[in-house]
């Protein structure tokens, strides 16, 4: 029977929820009275509803319509961005913005207004032209012209209703391969400079264990989509069990990071990869989150204004000093925000660091949270499991507008999730 009790978690596996989960296969089967989630690639408690019911949208993943002239694509909310990239790239189109995992669904990408490695193109929501929202009052289609309800839905954590369908404006995709140039950034200053390049896709991998003069060192990857032979895709691998606590101990991580850095020659190098390997580098290793063992892990991600980059450097110092072994950390540019009430992207630098779920991480996270706030930045809710509600509400200047609209759309609080309750976003 559908709707049985399940225990499930976000990607970080540090928080779990237990409750009845429905798996509708058609829109008719969707119960509009409970929160929805996608592939739970959010790290923390955003897609969890402990002790209550939730809807898993992933079986609703059909393509509904595509116009090859305009590139307008209508899909059900559970369709994954990885699938859409695989299907449409050979036909000359791609989702305009994709996050670092192809398992993210369209519903989840809207709920978090995700960003990609192409900050000049804005966030995912900037390329959505229509959303179908289902609530107990019925189905309605909203568009960017719908005003507050649109701004409360895009990046809105699923609080305005169940997203059943969306129409995306795909972006032209000139080829099916990515020409990738990797270069070493020797330190912090060089790293930021290199991230300012005008490559269409750009991301920096930081060795978060490096200290002193080497702090900020890493590899900057620039990508450009090219036509030509498609490189061969590698087969997927699976991490079958929870790794022992040892697997990611500080010494191992340090060695791994050093090797990751050294593998790119001093002069840099170029290679051709599949689009998927470039956009979703870890997806081929299924369940890699299990490398962190039974206790799971957290990811801290914040964005600070461009002129506050030094704060991120101080954060890296604190993280290295705390000895919480974090493998690669990611540094990216973000473009100007889009005005959606709870959307994360704003003009600045964003830093994302994984940390195993250990006792010393909590106080560290508090410290990083304070530094983010004081720098005028914000924490990304797709990653968060530790922040305080008061700081989050203060970091998102349009929280009150969002709350107004969400209260109108969902007066009975049907869509509240564990995250919404923990951060008191709706009270």
């Amino acid at each position, binding site marked *: 029977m*559908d709707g049985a009790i399940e225990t499930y978690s976000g990607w970080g596996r540090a928080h779990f929820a237990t409750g009845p989960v429905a798996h509708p296969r*058609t829109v008719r089967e969707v119960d509009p009275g409970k929160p929805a989630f996608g592939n739970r690639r959010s790290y923390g408690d955003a897609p969890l509803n402990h002790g209550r019911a939730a809807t898993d949208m992933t*079986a609703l993943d*059909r*393509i*509904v*319509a595509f116009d090859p002239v305009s590139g307008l694509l209508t899909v059900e909310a559970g369709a994954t961005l990885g699938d859409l990239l695989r299907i449409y790239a050979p036909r000359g189109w791609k989702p305009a913005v994709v996050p670092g995992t192809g398992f993210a669904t369209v519903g989840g990408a809207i709920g978090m207004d995700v960003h990609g490695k192409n900050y000049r193109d804005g966030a995912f929501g900037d390329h959505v032209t229509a959303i179908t929202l289902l609530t107990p009052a019925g189905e309605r289609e909203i568009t960017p012209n719908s005003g507050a309800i649109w701004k409360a839905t895009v990046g809105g954590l699923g609080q305005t209703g169940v997203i059943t369908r969306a129409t995306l404006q795909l972006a032209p995709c000139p080829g099916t391969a990515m020409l990738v140039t990797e270069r070493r950034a020797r330190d912090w200053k060089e790293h930021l400079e290199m991230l300012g390049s005008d490559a269409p896709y750009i991301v920096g991998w930081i060795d978060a264990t490096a200290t002193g003069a080497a702090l900020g060192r890493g590899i900057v990857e620039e990508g450009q989509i090219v036509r030509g032979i498609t490189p061969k895709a590698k087969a997927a691998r699976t991490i079958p069990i929870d790794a022992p606590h040892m697997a990611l101990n500080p010494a191992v991580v340090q060695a791994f990071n050093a090797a990751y850095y050294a593998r790119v020659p001093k002069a840099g190098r170029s290679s051709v990869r599949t689009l998927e390997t470039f956009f979703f580098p870890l997806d081929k290793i299924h369940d890699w989150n299990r490398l962190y063992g039974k206790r799971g892990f957290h990811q801290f991600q914040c964005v600070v204004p461009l002129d506050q980059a030094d704060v991120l450097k101080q954060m890296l110092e604190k993280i290295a000093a705390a000895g919480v072994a974090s493998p690669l950390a990611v540094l990216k540019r973000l473009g100007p925000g889009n005005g959606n009430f709870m959307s994360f992207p704003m003009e600045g630098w964003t830093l994302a660091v994984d940390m195993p779920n250990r006792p010393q991480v909590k106080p560290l996270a508090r410290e990083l949270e304070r530094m983010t706030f004081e720098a005028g930045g914000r924490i990304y809710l797709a990653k968060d499991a530790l922040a305080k509600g008061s700081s989050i509400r203060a970091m998102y200047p349009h929280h009150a507008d969002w709350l107004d609209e969400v209260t109108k759309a969902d007066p009975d609080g049907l869509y509240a999730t564990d995250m919404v309750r923990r951060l008191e976003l709706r009270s």
Partner: protein
Amino acid sequence: MSAETWIIVGATSGMAIPFTRLLAGRGAALVLAGRRMEDLSAMATDLTERGAVSATPVMFDARDPGTFDAILAAAKAAEGTLNAAVFVGSMPEQSAIDADPALVDGTIADSLTGPARLLTLLAPQFEDRGTGTIIGIGSVAGDRGRIGNYVYGAAKAGFATYLSGLRNRLGRSGVHVLTVKPGPVRTPMTQGMKMPFMAEADATAEDILKAADRKKNVLYTKRIWWPIMSVIRAIPEPIFKKMSV
């Protein structure tokens, strides 16, 4: 024109959906047979976007042989190599069957008599073409009658025996028959059930297509079920009758 046409019987099945997507990805023509027409037409649009040369919904009810003609006609019109994959089946709780023995008939019709009658009608077309593959989905449940679901198991055992005979017959004209015996797979049929070695439907579909391409006769998927079922089949009846596995 496509090099292969596949008739998918029970196309809305949780296992069939990823299977049809694999076929779409290699440009097959698809005939989608099932009883939920609205969902089949949504599926057809999706599969065409995913690369199928064509995808045609056809009404099919395993319990109503009157619906089989449409499938026979679609087979006749098929371009390229004709193939068929039968996913239809139903698994009511054994306790529900015990309470209402009339459910035996439907269970057998969905997993055995319906599919067997349809395949028997299709067989001459395959013989005439002298090529192609027929896939039938049985189950590890058919390998031994167990207290938990022996009516479903009986239907699947019968279907496996039918497929073995069909293979024997059609092999003579160059047509291949693959019997698939899945262990538990996460699909609507097993929704909410806790079972050992649960497989994902995507992986099962990949296994099935690979086995069909390699012209395997019998596929246990996941592979672990082959040794497990070998052991279970070997347990002497005096012992087995006291076990609950």
